[in-house]
């Protein structure tokens, strides 16, 4: 694909192509500080942030940015790793508007801070919900039980 070569030359060793089938390419960026610069580059070819899937490989968290465009059904998966010590990443909401709610959801369910997000609030859970439930270490403790008033089992 044309874009992949262009992206690769722009980022040298930081960008790694994991898979480039027809219609689905997977790339990984090693330095999370470059995410915004890369997003601008991706914006030239892909219109929208299709989805943002966070995977918990504690203590690392892998963010899968899935991009797509309206011309064809091509998918670009961008993987970024962040660690629990530095649990923040630059928001790409100003580049892809559709990232707004997806980033809020990632913040809600995993607790990842997105720097520069215009409105980083919880979206699915109540404002005072204790903890971030999709993390692997989420335990249904007394705080959650008190909040819900139910005897929850997970």
């Amino acid at each position, binding site marked *: 694909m044309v874009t992949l070569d262009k992206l690769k030359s722009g980022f040298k060793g930081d960008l790694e192509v994991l898979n480039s089938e027809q219609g689905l390419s997977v790339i990984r960026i090693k330095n999370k500080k470059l995410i915004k610069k890369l997003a601008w580059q991706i914006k030239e070819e892909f219109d*929208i942030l299709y989805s943002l899937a966070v*995977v918990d490989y504690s203590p690392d968290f892998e963010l899968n940015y899935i991009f797509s465009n309206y011309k064809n*059904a091509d*998918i670009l998966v961008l993987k970024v790793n962040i660690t629990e010590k530095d649990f923040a990443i630059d928001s790409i909401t100003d580049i892809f508007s*559709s990232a707004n*709610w997806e980033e809020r959801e990632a913040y809600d369910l995993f607790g990842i801070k997105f720097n520069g997000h215009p409105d980083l609030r919880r*979206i*699915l*859970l109540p404002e005072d919900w204790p903890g971030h*439930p999709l993390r692997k270490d989420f335990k249904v403790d007394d705080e959650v039980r008190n909040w819900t008033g139910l005897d929850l089992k997970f």
Partner: protein
Amino acid sequence: MENSIRLNIGPVHPAMHGVLKLILDVKGDTVIKAQTEIGFLHRASEKIAEMRYFSNYYPIMDKLDYVSALNMEILYASVVEKAANIEIPVRAVYIRTIMAEIQRIMSHLVFIGSFGEDIGNMTGFIWALRERELLMTIVEKISGGRLAPMYICNGGMFYDLPQGIEDDILKAMSTIENKVNHEYNAMFTKNQIFLSRTKGVGILTKDMVKKYGITGPIARASGINRDLRKISPYLAYDKVDFEIPIENEGDTYSRFVVRTREILESIKIIRQCIKDLPSGPYKTAVPWIIRIPKKDTFVKQESSRGEMGIFLVTDGGDKPYRLKLRSPTFFAIHALEELLVNIKVADAFVIVASMDPVMGEVDR
């Protein structure tokens, strides 16, 4: 804001299609600011996926988009089969296509009904549900369930089609085609009050669609020619002949028209599939508990509301390591905050209805 009334509409309000909450600042009868709030139906479906075997997750998929449950099941089956490299027989592919299209018609009929009802036309609602009942009966005959059929399983489906069901389907199809072409036209698209309420209301431009990442019938009503059934065919969609309805205005009326025309296209697909329906096995035998090696799988399909996708991460175990659902209306609801400004209060309900949200799928 000064001199304005803050209307808290929902989460329990008959016109909110479930539990969507709108916060409208209203001045007189005009909305000056709108906020949306979601999450009232959040059931942590993604967390539940991490605790269930691959075969045991189908009932949860049913309850995501409960108006088009079979589409959800087929999507999940596709993702598991792609990850585990399971080939399904040709007959199963065709049966799945038929079921997906039947479910799409049912979902669009619910849309037509509830849209008419939000405009104040109770009769349209009851007529649409009357036609949906025909298909409900067929789905019940095939799968045993009505709203949440639980029909698809890994490797195919639980049962073959019962004998003689093809005639029932064809008969229902011609009834629905007749009703859509005549009765619904008289009730909606030739009705002057309906036209004045919907034309030019809630215009969603092409740029806004791209900005918010909206897909499906809503995007096609704004002139975007994108249908996954056409541009990246799955199931048997590359073997049948159908068109993608496109409208260019982007208002609520074109969203309505796109969905009515999609019903007619789905009828075409079903007729061709029934004609070409091959005989043979309807499933490949797959053990109940399967293990999928460590990999990422992403599958997207055209559900009745737009492009639904699943990002599945497996780690060699018998359960998903992480399952992320991409729901189409989640993005469409996001656009409401921009759409619902400087309109009359009555229009807000029409615009929300034209998005056809199902909150089970938005909140997951």
